């Protein structure tokens, strides 16, 4: 995967979590994801289309997600509540939007977010789309951002 696809989203993580959650994020070493099984319990997913296609996923352990959501929204939420999913969705929305703005390709759009809650869920990316997992550490716990992006084919970009 083009390294220029990863840095903008790492900067997005720092910016969003620093500004709206008041949380410093320590970024770990990126690795290539080899299994479709997501590591954690809560995932926010956003699709990217246009000149670059793929997805961005933020995945958290339930407890970490609850602490982060409480700091972000100002309210405690159960993981089963719609407000919890809404907050996670907005976090991945902002990280994806911030990252998209600094991609080398400017013709990209982001979808509305989806949120998956449940242990050992699978987030499958296109089998030809490489996925990089970047671990993130905070005082609320660890989470990951999964960046699965590739340049669109000419026909797909023009559609």
């Amino acid at each position, binding site marked *: 995967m083009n390294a220029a696809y990863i840095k903008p989203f790492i900067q997005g993580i720092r910016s969003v979590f620093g*500004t*709206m959650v008041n949380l410093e994020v320590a970024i770990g070493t990126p690795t290539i994801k080899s299994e479709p099984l997501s590591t954690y319990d809560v995932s926010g997913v956003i699709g990217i289309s246009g000149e670059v296609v793929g997805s961005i996923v933020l995945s958290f352990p339930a407890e970490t997600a609850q602490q982060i959501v409480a700091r972000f929204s100002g309210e405690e939420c159960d993981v089963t509540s*719609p407000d919890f999913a*809404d907050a996670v969705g907005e976090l991945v929305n*902002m990280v*994806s939007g*911030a990252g998209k703005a600094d991609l080398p390709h400017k013709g990209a759009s982001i979808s509305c977010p989806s949120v998956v809650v449940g242990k050992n869920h699978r987030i499958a990316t296109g089998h030809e789309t490489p996925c990089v997992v970047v671990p993130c550490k905070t005082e609320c716990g660890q989470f990951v951002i999964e960046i699965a992006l590739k340049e669109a084919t000419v026909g797909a970009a023009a559609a």
Partner: protein
Amino acid sequence: MRIMLVDDSKTMRSIQKSVLSTLGFKQIEEACDGQDALSKVGAFKPELLLVDWNMPNMDGLSFVKAYRQQDKGTPIIMVTTESEKSRVVEAIKAGVNNYVVKPFTPDMLGKRIQETLAAKTSA
């Protein structure tokens, strides 16, 4: 002052409402997308709108264009993750008066709101 918040995220509307409350604004109507907002503007008659861009059913840009057909003067602030210059230009051409990029601090949003209202007063 009557203010309408248009964003599909309840969390984001809640954060904006909190900032507005700090600034002394209490008359707030919420809409979850452009279509919802269009159905409410007639009765609520907002004096300021804060509008997200990426929303289901009707996005923020489409709402701004539709709203400006009926109201050319009420100030609109776009509050969005879309930060590319081309998007900002597109929004301004559609009739947006000011722009806030997410993520934002309460201070940033408060400042933009006050700027926008001051510009309207002096116009």
